[in-house]
């Protein structure tokens, strides 16, 4: 591939290098300051009283006893919300504090500030709330049905997206159908919701918080506080993981209300159990698919009905539904597509953004179908996928033509052609228990263990879609400090662990040829960077930083051109102005002297279009990204326990701006996909969460994650900065169906629900009518 002419700057700390991340050592050593470590002189501690019921009418709230507790400074209810008592990312439908009705277990009803966290919690427990308990609506199918009581004024349907392409009544000689279920996954970040609000003398508030998008927080907080947006100033505090769970507000307005009411800094830190009620989860889904194909394995049509349980409030359900619909047939050429995706309100926990965002659920459906179709056709599952794979120039079911690399077939071949891992154990077949299903729990010495291999490939849109004005702002400044040129980069982009602070500095080094780069704290003193989600920050904030650097560079070179003999193109490297001959013709420090060069750029990716409401047609997405996995598993078929032996992944990233970070994203995303395949589920019974702890909400450990052979392709997207393609989400999407397919291959069990539980493996009838145990 060709690289942009601006990339002549040397330095392994620039684009394409993997410099050490500035927060790495601190995090490993436990010295990094997370939002839960915030502290201020004289601060108060907040606590939240939450509804124990998934659906109830509040008839009375009495705060007297709580207020009377010594050490309590404030007890606030919905009556005390100064502005609009509603917030929400897409629809302002969620109360800051519940008024007459609570719609999910854990909904905040009142907040307390006290001089000690224990006092605050005790005071919250002293608040008396009278509830008339109502029947919860806990099934999205019921929510959609006529006659079900409406949980919100506009009914229970948040969004219905229809995709209609080709023949409405297609027929095919080979047809497979299936119904698939996805349980509720949690982002399971380790740093609980936390932050601190500090009242300001101007009547506003300064908020330090772990979040994903400072400016969308700012807008919502200001509306609920009833103050102008500029009176709410937000600085990003140390983020202990996000994965979508910090897109919605949690404690932000509560802390600000209490700070403004008491005149003191107020800090909130949710406990682990509370955190499970403090953020949205991945939408559970029920999906019905019908695939029709020719005898030689070409897809003729796909019909799909995808039901997503949005829970009590909308959050990002509309966009999740849009993704599930537009990406609902997967990375395949499908001439006739008929997809209906629905997002519903229920009284289950609110669901919203999580890595993969609607594409995860659909991928489990369409990839399960591709395996089923391959079996019906007697075809190899990889061959079937390759035969139908999209490529550059293919048309999606929305009518959008894929206009950059789409190496789906190549990704599949790469993972298929990897050498197979050896059987576990030594020459005599004796294995370390950690290599066997059940692991250290000593459940097998090989009895009942069968190996299986499965494949999955997925598609994801990068950045915000459907006509959203998606931009980022970067301010870049070049000045001379202590005789050295120094760059500072200021954005509001949230570093959530993905390595964006490292990447911003790499871009500045490459563009400006200056080694010393300072990344200023992310805050609202600069314009919006958009959200750290949708695999978009390298693309959009990276694009903004690049553009701002280019503006700075142009000005520096103009200054140089004024003082240097005319002729030839100039560029910057090693703190010097370099002529096209490669000769250093000026020193940047000497050239600038006291002069400061600063530019702020608001940068947009190319626009997208809304979907046609009747047909779902439209160029809705900016960029598509693809990953493929091959999973090799050993399954104890008698106990239903799974050990993933190896998880190979191939992904096209357009350009690996930081190769080590790219591999880290692929490993982490795959781990999250593994979790959804075999263990991660928030279990909800009657609208209530029954496992809100890391004791019973299990996430993979190092003994569950297998080795990962990874192939990174760099097929540049000409529309994107440096040709990059978003990295974070695709590996989460395809890991899950690959693992499930491998377990099916090992056991013969149909396995239509994720996460797979041991009893599903043991008691599920095998597809040929037998029994797997």
């Amino acid at each position, binding site marked *: 591939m060709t690289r942009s002419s601006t990339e002549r700057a040397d330095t392994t700390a620039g684009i394409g290098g993997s410099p050490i991340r500035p927060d790495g050592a601190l995090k490993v050593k436990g010295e990094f300051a997370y939002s839960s470590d915030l502290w201020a002189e004289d601060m108060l501690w907040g606590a939240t009283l939450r509804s124990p019921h998934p659906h109830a009418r509040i008839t009375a709230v009495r705060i007297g006893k709580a207020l009377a507790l010594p050490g309590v400074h404030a007890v606030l209810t919905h009556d005390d919300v100064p502005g609009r008592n509603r917030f929400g990312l897409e629809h302002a439908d969620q109360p800051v504090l519940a008024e007459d009705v609570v719609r999910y277990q854990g909904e905040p009803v009142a907040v307390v500030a006290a001089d000690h966290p224990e006092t605050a*919690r005790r005071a919250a427990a002293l608040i008396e709330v009278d509830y008339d308990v109502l029947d919860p609506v806990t099934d999205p199918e019921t929510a959609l049905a006529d006659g079900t009581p409406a949980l919100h004024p506009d009914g229970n349907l948040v969004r219905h997206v229809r995709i209609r392409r080709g023949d409405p009544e297609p027929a095919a000689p080979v047809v497979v159908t299936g119904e698939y279920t996805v349980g509720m996954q949690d982002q399971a970040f380790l740093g609980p919701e936390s932050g601190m609000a500090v009242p300001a003398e101007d009547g506003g508030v300064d908020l330090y918080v772990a979040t994903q998008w400072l400016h969308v927080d700012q807008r919502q907080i200001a509306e609920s506080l009833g103050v102008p947006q500029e009176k709410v100033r937000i600085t990003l505090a140390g983020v202990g993981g996000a994965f979508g769970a910090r897109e919605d507000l949690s404690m932000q307005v509560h802390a600000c209300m209490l700070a403004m009411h008491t005149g003191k800094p107020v800090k909130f830190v949710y*406990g*682990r*159990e509370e955190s499970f009620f403090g953020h949205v989860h991945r939408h559970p889904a029920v999906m019905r698919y019908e695939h029709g194909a020719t005898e030689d394995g070409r897809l003729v049509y796909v019909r799909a009905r995808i039901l997503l349980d949005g829970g009590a409030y909308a959050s990002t359900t509309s966009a999740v539904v849009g993704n599930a619909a537009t990406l609902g047939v997967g990375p395949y050429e499908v001439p006739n597509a008929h997809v209906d995706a629905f997002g519903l309100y229920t009284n289950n926990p609110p669901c919203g953004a999580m890595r993969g965002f609607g594409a995860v659920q659909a991928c489990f459906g369409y990839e399960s179908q591709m395996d089923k179709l391959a079996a019906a056709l007697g075809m190899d599952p990889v061959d079937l996928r390759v035969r139908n794979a999209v490529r550059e120039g293919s048309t999606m079911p929305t009518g959008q033509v894929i206009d950059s690399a789409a190496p789906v077939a190549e990704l599949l071949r790469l993972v298929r052609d990897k050498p197979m891992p050896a059987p576990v154990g030594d020459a005599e077949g004796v294995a370390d228990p*950690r290599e066997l*299903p*059940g*692991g*250290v*729990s*000593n*459940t*097998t*010495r090989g*009895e*009942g263990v069968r190996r299986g291999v499965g494949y999955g490939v997925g598609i994801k849109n990068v950045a915000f879609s459907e006509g959203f004005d998606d931009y980022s702002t970067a301010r870049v400044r070049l000045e001379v400090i202590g005789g050295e040129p120094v760059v500072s980069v200021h954005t509001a982009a949230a570093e959530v662990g993905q390595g964006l602070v490292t990447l911003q500095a790499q871009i500045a080094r490459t563009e400006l040829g200056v080694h010393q780069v300072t990344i200023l704290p992310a805050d609202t003193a600069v314009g919006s960077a958009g959200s750290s989600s949708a695999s978009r920050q390298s693309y959009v904030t990276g694009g903004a930083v690049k553009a701002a650097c280019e503006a700075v560079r142009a000005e520096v070179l103009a200054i140089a051109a004024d003082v240097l003999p005319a002729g030839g193109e100039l560029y910057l490297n090693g703190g010097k102005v370099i002529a096209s001959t490669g000769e250093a013709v000026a020193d940047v420090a000497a050239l600038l002297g006291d002069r400061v060069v600063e530019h702020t750029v608001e940068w947009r990716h190319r626009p997208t279009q809304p979907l046609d409401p009747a047909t779902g047609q439209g160029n809705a997405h900016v960029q598509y990204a693809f990953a493929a996995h091959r999973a090799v598993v050993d399954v104890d078929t*008698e*106990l*239903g*326990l799974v*050990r993933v032996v190896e998880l190979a992944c191939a992904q096209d990233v357009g350009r690996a701006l930081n190769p080590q970070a790219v591999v880290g994203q692929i490993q982490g995303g795959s781990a999250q996909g593994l979790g959804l395949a*075999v*263990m991660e589920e928030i*279990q909800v019974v009657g609208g209530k969460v*029954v*496992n809100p*702890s890391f*004791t*019973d909400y*299990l996430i*993979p*450990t190092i*003994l*569950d994650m297998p080795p990962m052979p990874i192939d990174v392709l760099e097929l540049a997207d000409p529309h994107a900065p440096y040709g990059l393609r978003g990295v974070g989400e695709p590996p989460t999407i395809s890991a899950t169906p690959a693992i499930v397919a491998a377990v099916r291959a090992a056991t013969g069990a149909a396995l239509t629900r994720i996460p797979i*539980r*041991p*009893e599903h493996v*043991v*008691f599920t009838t095998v597809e040929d009518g037998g029994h797997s*145990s």
Partner: protein
Amino acid sequence: MEFLRPASLTEALEAKAAHPDATPIAGGTDLMVELNFDKRRPSALLDLTGVAELAEWDTDGGSGGDPGGDPGGDTVRLGACVPYSRIIGELGGRLPGLAMAARTVGSPQIRNRGTVGGNLGSASPAGDAHPPLLAAGAAVEAASTRGSRRIPAAEFFHGPKRSALAADELVVAVHLPVATGPQQFSKVGTRNAMVIAVCSFSLALHPETGAVGTGIGSAGPTPLRAEDAQLFAAAELEGRWEAPGPLPDSVLRRFGELVAAAAKPIDDVRGTAEYRRHALAVLARRTLTWAWDDYRTGSWSRCA
């Protein structure tokens, strides 16, 4: 909340007598979770980590705690506050079943803190240490200012998180016979490490008496013994100890069925009752196979 920190066993027993509501804490791996989740709010904590007597083990053949020495003896007296990591490191030969269970407890950090005394104090049906105590025929030594007594493990558990301990008593030790035959422990969890048992099973063969001990975890209101299975296995093994050959599959399967039948599982967040019974039958069959093979080949004694 009051925090009591006795420096000796005598002080600890006096403190417990004076504060019968005080909850003892050793490693805190169970109790601190409950406190952090606000599930319990005891009036006082009785910290036993300062009581040196509770943190040692010995045998009736001499004092222990020295991994290099071999004090001999037929019984191990395991102090209540000896952490799992020391059981694994120092007692794997004498108490193989308990050491195997200890290896499955939590993470290395948890095994450095957690203790058998704490497991007994919590008396959870899911406690990993309980099945091997039942299988080995252990006795719990409880003490108070009134004196001390030994409670057979099989009589210790009264219900979910309820035990035979009186309000003024502390678990001070567990007495376990040194293994005279192979022992096994297996547990099912939906993760390959750091998992609470969906169900677990422990087995101890006693060649010198011809007896077979069992313990079932996480499949009933208390840890259970599978008494019919024990009697069945003992009867089937009678006559085989002298010239041991492989056990017939029918024996292994019947043993599994009887273990499953002894369980009283429920459906809960970790698994279904049906699955637990099924899995226990599998674990019982496998562990009996392994233990008997180890006995036949003599390989079990090599690690002692």
